[in-house]
């Protein structure tokens, strides 16, 4: 017999904060909560058909799709210039990821660089450092193997380091 789904409220309480951290990393703090609404509303709609055994992977898959949809719709309309508060917010949220990369939060350029990574590498880096998942869990969340997750994070970090070196060069 298939495992029973927990009440949606229980599922939501368990996953809200990690998915929120993921979306902040994927689309930035200003749009994260809108994406979060879309994510959990879509999850609620499809919930009765979800597989109870792998709900974490399931919800991160939905969140990743919502983040991609968000970027697509942003590209279609003119990019607004960021408000000062937005920039401060972006720096604040850059804290965990950039410190994990061995940089001070001052280097918010790194965060911009994270946003420029290819989606799969960005998702892997954010899940590893902003959501603080283990590689096995990153793999589960992305529907890939632990090894593939490790590889994505590795490639992502390599690009970020190269970018950091460029910045150092420019600062000279």
């Amino acid at each position, binding site marked *: 017999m298939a495992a*029973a*789904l*927990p*009440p*949606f*409220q*229980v599922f*939501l309480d368990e996953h*809200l904060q990690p998915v*929120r951290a993921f979306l902040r990393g994927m689309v930035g703090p200003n749009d994260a*909560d809108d994406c*979060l*609404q879309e994510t*959990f*509303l879509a999850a*609620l*709609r499809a*919930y*009765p058909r979800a597989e109870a055994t792998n709900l974490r992977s399931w919800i991160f898959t939905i969140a990743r799709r919502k983040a991609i949809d968000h970027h697509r719709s942003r590209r279609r309309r003119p990019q607004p210039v960021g408000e000062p508060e937005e920039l401060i917010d972006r720096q604040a949220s850059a804290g965990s990821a950039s410190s994990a990369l061995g940089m001070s939060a001052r280097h918010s350029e790194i965060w911009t660089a994270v946003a420029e990574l290819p989606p799969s590498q960005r998702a892997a880096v954010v899940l590893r450092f902003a959501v603080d998942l283990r590689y096995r869990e990153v793999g589960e969340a992305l529907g890939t193997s632990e090894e593939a997750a490790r590889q994505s994070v590795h490639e992502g970090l390599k690009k970020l380091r190269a970018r950091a070196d460029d910045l150092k060069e420019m600062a000279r």
Partner: protein
Amino acid sequence: MSEFMDRLVARADTDGLLDVAYATLDTPLGTAMVAATPRGLVRVALPNEDLDRVLTRLAADVSPRLLEFPARLDEARRELEEYFEHRRDQFELPLDWRLTHAGFYRRVLRATARVPFGEVITYGDAAKRAGSPRAVRAAGTALGSNPIPIVVPCHRVIRSGGAIGNYGGGPEMKRFLLELEGALS
């Protein structure tokens, strides 16, 4: 995050995605829980029941699309509060009977729902009113499985000798309710 939750749950309700809404309420007996589908009140959990287990059962028996959404339970909570404050002797809530077995069990519970405040009947009376006078034990089982206690007043059914009989929330709770209704004098 509570503003986020309010927005999410309100949208879920508007979009018809909220199959079961629940809320807790304080009573003189402790914290109870009430749950409703769009059809009506489907479950009342007495304070001695484990909330996590009740929710897990509701998810399995009704729908996993179950969220805390007190707004849908405003009327139920108000009527129950009034009942405990001696300001109400009859509930006017739409009920969703889906958690009761159709047939004899449901007939027993529907008959019990018509026993007025302050009165009691025996298990034999309940069996008779449900159309099977000899099924006294089965009537007891039906009452014991009542998913909507207090509102469907199974506490008003007692033993023929005058003993108070069993109750899901324990005999103390049954006595408290009957005393509140002035039925034990």
